[in-house]
């Protein structure tokens, strides 16, 4: 029994051995430019090396390998942009062993100007002042300093015209919006249909700058009939609020409309 245990122990022990090999980066540098970089790698068994990667903070990129007898040359694929900053060169072999080397890389690329506005939505009840931040980034999203500044800041006063604007003409994501504020003048009127059906509607509701109020603005009709007060909620459509009076509400009553802080005229029907 003991003999069998010893044999089992030896088998387990010897089966746990490391088959990794030493891999070296021949032209290792602490800093390099990705456009020109060629990573020269050597190892005892070059055929065991399966892949070479560059890991930056946000991406993993597999390099193209050119094999020779003495070494392997790894290059970044054409057209591929790499994030500047601390990175790792990772060499993987057939047994999934990894050899890791640290360096700092950078890459020149096309730049893009960003114009960011805040807040993106303003209503005409507010001050209509907006912050503008302009900055430049590379395709790899690195900020490029201009005049030693990362970004420039301006405060803009916007026109009170309700519409959608763009900070940058060809970019839909840079849209910002001026929207109508509270309506200022509500005129309520009645239309009759048939003997008993009454419709009530407002004028074209606008804010103080003449912008039509936003679609879906809540309006509350109040109907006072003696001691009974009825509340009917509706929303605006194309700047107008309409309501068909329910059949069970019969004269006499008085009716008015409230939207936020604004009130309409009162109509008394006998």
């Amino acid at each position, binding site marked *: 029994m003991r003999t069998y245990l010893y044999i089992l122990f030896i088998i387990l022990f010897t089966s746990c051995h490391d088959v990794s090999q030493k891999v070296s980066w021949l032209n290792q540098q602490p800093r390099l430019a990705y456009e020109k970089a060629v990573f020269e790698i050597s190892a005892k068994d070059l055929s065991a090396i399966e892949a070479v990667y560059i890991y930056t903070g946000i991406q993993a990129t597999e390099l193209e390998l050119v094999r020779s007898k003495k070494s392997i040359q790894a290059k970044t694929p054409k057209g591929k942009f790499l994030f500047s900053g601390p990175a790792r060169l990772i060499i993987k072999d057939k047994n999934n062993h990894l050899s890791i080397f640290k360096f700092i890389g950078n890459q020149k690329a096309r730049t893009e100007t960003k114009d960011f506005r805040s807040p*993106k939505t303003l209503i005409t009840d*507010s001050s209509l002042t907006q912050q503008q931040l302009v900055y430049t980034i590379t395709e790899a999203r690195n900020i490029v300093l201009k005049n030693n500044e990362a970004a420039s800041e301006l405060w803009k006063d916007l026109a009170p015209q309700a519409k959608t604007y763009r900070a940058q003409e060809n970019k839909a994501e840079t849209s910002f919006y001026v929207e109508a504020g509270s309506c200022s003048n509500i005129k309520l009127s009645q239309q009759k249909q048939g003997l008993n059906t009454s419709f009530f509607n407002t004028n074209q509701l606008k804010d103080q700058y003449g912008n039509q109020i936003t679609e*879906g603005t809540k*309006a509350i009709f109040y109907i006072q009939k003696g001691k*009974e007060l*009825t509340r009917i909620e509706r929303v605006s459509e194309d700047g107008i609020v309409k309501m068909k009076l329910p059949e*069970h509400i019969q004269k006499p009553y008085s009716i008015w409309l409230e*939207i*936020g802080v604004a009130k309409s005229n009162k109509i008394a029907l006998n």
Partner: protein
Amino acid sequence: MSLLDKNTLSNKSGRLLLLVALCLVLLTHGIILYFTLPKTYDAYVHMFFADHYSRFWFDPNEYRWYTGFLTTSYPPLVHQLIALLSKVFPYKISFVIYAVVVYEALVIGMYRFTKLFFSKEIAGVAAILTVLSTALIETVHVYGQVPTITGMALLLNAIPFLYLFIIKRKPYYLVMALSFISVVVCSHHVTAIFGMVFFIAPVIFMALADQIETASTNFWKFLIQIFKKALASWKQIVLFGGLTIFLAITLILPYWLWSKNDPITQVSIPHGSRDNFLTNLSSGLVFYIIPLALIIALILAVSYLLTRKKRNIGWAVSFFLCLLLGSGGTTPLPKLMLGENAFNILTLDRFGFWAAIIAIPFMAKFIYSFLNGSVKEFWVKRIGERYHFSLAGISGFSYLIFIVFIFHLGSFRPLQPKEIEIQPMLNFLNRDDHIRWRFMTLGFGDQMAWLSTHTLAASVDGNYHSARRLPELTSRPIERLENAKFAGDPGLESLKDFLTQAEKYNLKYVFSNDRYYDPLLFYSGWNRTIRLENGIMVWEKGNISTIKPIQPKELSENLKLMWGILPITVLMLCFILTFYYLKYYKEGDYNNSKLQDTQTFPNYINYVSSLLPLAFFTIFIAYQVVNILLTNEQKTPTKTVENFYNHLDFQEFEKAYHFYKKDPTYSIHQYLLEKSVKDGGLLPTYAKMNTIVTKELSQKGDKRTVEVSANWNTAVGNHNTIDTLQLVKENGSWYIIPKKFEAEIPEEQMMQYDFTLFKKIGKRIISSFTTEKDDRIKKPFVSVRSLEIIQQDSNQYIVGEILNADNIPVNYLAYANVTYANGKTLKYFPRMDAQYNFSPKATTYFKIPIPVTDSIKEITVAVDTDVSEKGYLHGCITSHTINSNTDQVAKLELKLFNDLPTNINVPGILIAERNKNGQLVNVKTHLHKTAVRSAQHLTFKYTYKKETTEVITQSLKLFVNGAERNVDNSLNKNKSLDILPHSFIAEELYFH
């Protein structure tokens, strides 16, 4: 046949029977368990723990439940083994494999345990009885408690070694006993703490008794002999006891440290095993009758065998004590014996389980005797072999039917909701960073643990009650949030705390499988987002921040290593030692001279114990059949009404219809049609009946008038109803005369309603980065128009009026930061007296309760807003007349007209009250109990009780989205009562 030949035959038969038992385990439990485990109480919890070890073997911090708890609160071995199996098999299969293996170990353990008392043949019968024991079937297939089975399996295997150690004093017996006990300790804490006492003490007693050459007939002298033998064996006993205690402490030291540093201090959770089984028959059935059915039937024979020999005294004491303790609150004795604390923490069914285990050898002896011994001879002499065979067959068959009944317990009273497909929920949690918030489930039963097993998302709830420390859970007698309705008012209050204080625990999502909770979710500020492919509705609360990093509980590295390494090591050691022992040290049988094989029974036991099982099981099954199939539910007027309401409560409308008087003008179609038109609402749809009281008001020949008073539990409060029904007797049964139904006929044939849908586009730039700056939508602006601190009786509140000054619907969260004189600052949120979503330019109100636990230094009110896409339609056209308005009450007449194209399921109003100075003094939600259908009216009277309110002059700071603001002028100062619609609409209007 010579004695030697008899022994050899007995040994062979015993081993064969053991083999049969082991095969039976595979063929029965091995196959059935896969199908019963989804319906068990605990199987998923153990799989969740296994998943923890599978992911984080050496880290005991489990953050997915209760904002984090330590897994050192439960001995790890069982979970670690399932975790190891799960590396190869899926969890359910791993669980089944483990459970079957451990059941096999239990069968072997019972075989070896029985050999201490009887021959191998009887031990073989005991092994088969273990497969068929109702206590074990219930533990595995109803409870899913594999650690209990593991602990018992290994303990039974340890006991013969302990016995032999005391008798023969050979060290390898001690080593074997301790190795098995070590595994018990690492598997199940309750078996280690309590169970060992009921098994270890009797076996030591038995071993000492067996060493007495001539036992005294006098009981006290016999005890003195035992004491002397104990003194003679003191070294063995002390060595065993000391080493056991040392191992018990060392092997699961982190568990003891957790118990000491973080003791269980929660309010006792009610459990059926503590009920009085005479008054609560269903608890008695589940926790006493089912597990102990065969023991009760054979109690005379078992008691006789236990008390015949002095060596069995210890076992007799254990057995009867366990029977007594397992009876729960039926007598005051268990509470007196265990103490109030232990009584309220422990679930007492485990004592019945241990009694069942102890009884198995003795039941096996009687059954063997009945089939092949003195009892058989007794019957054959009296009724002949043929009738004895029939008696045996029918008894066995009736027991089998009883076992089948246990397997189908769930179909009579479902113990769990239907199986839920979890993949859609996993997909939901995995996308859009939903995992950054906590979630909760409602109506999932124990399947919530199955969901947790498959995700890294965190829940505020959990399924291991001993480990929870959240005050909202520990301060109330509630098991889980997820089945809060079954815990009555305390359960719902606990749930309300979590739903209203969601921000405190970063709780953002609720998966609801039970519409009972819909009104509570809605009125606590939750919105429906999507219905998943499996039918589960996802509710979401706005303005909840993401989970902050939590400092995990500190545990030394050595303890973590111990916890991860020792249990498995101990198990492997046990295997190796067992192998070694079987190869080199195994001797013959234990102590043949002490076996009770030649035991015969007195006649009364032969009669009673042979016939009682047949009578018991037959009567039991017959009672169930009669109850379910043959009872006349309409025997008396009051019973008719009670059963009618019961069927309605369980939504069994077709059954309820049959309680109506048969009338060709009132078909079932008419009934269902009328029901669909007039029903719906808080009580018909979202309530469970709590109590029902019926009273006969009048009788006239075959006619009766019955008044029925019912109390209904809803998630938003209790409601009472009183109704009067007319009944008539026909053909021996009572029938209800249906009431005439007058439907309101709406003026319109088509309803139309205009409202605007809003949709937040969300991420426009497709990128795995966090949201681009250009995609961030600004927080909508709200204006607070009134803000007061009011005092009502001894309570304080903050009431406010708020206007949506923006052009999009808003979801807001108002809360008060209250700094007390003791320096503590706590956050309080509104409960149901608020509308959380409102339309552009709409106004609403809120009320925040402020507990006055100490004098208040400062109050800051904050309002956070977010875009809302749903929940901003609140209901119908609301008309109110104030018939009288005094300082104490306002009598209101309310008329609601539903102008929406859908039913309003819970019509409600939000009332804002102002005093003579125009100050806001109260905000209150009132809900009506019946629905109002589209194009129909609902009229009701409501007496609004005014609280004695004082407006407290104290400056309040106000912040809106983090910026300090002033309170603007109120828009409704002149309205003494402002009444807004505040209804719950079940049908989703906002489609996305």
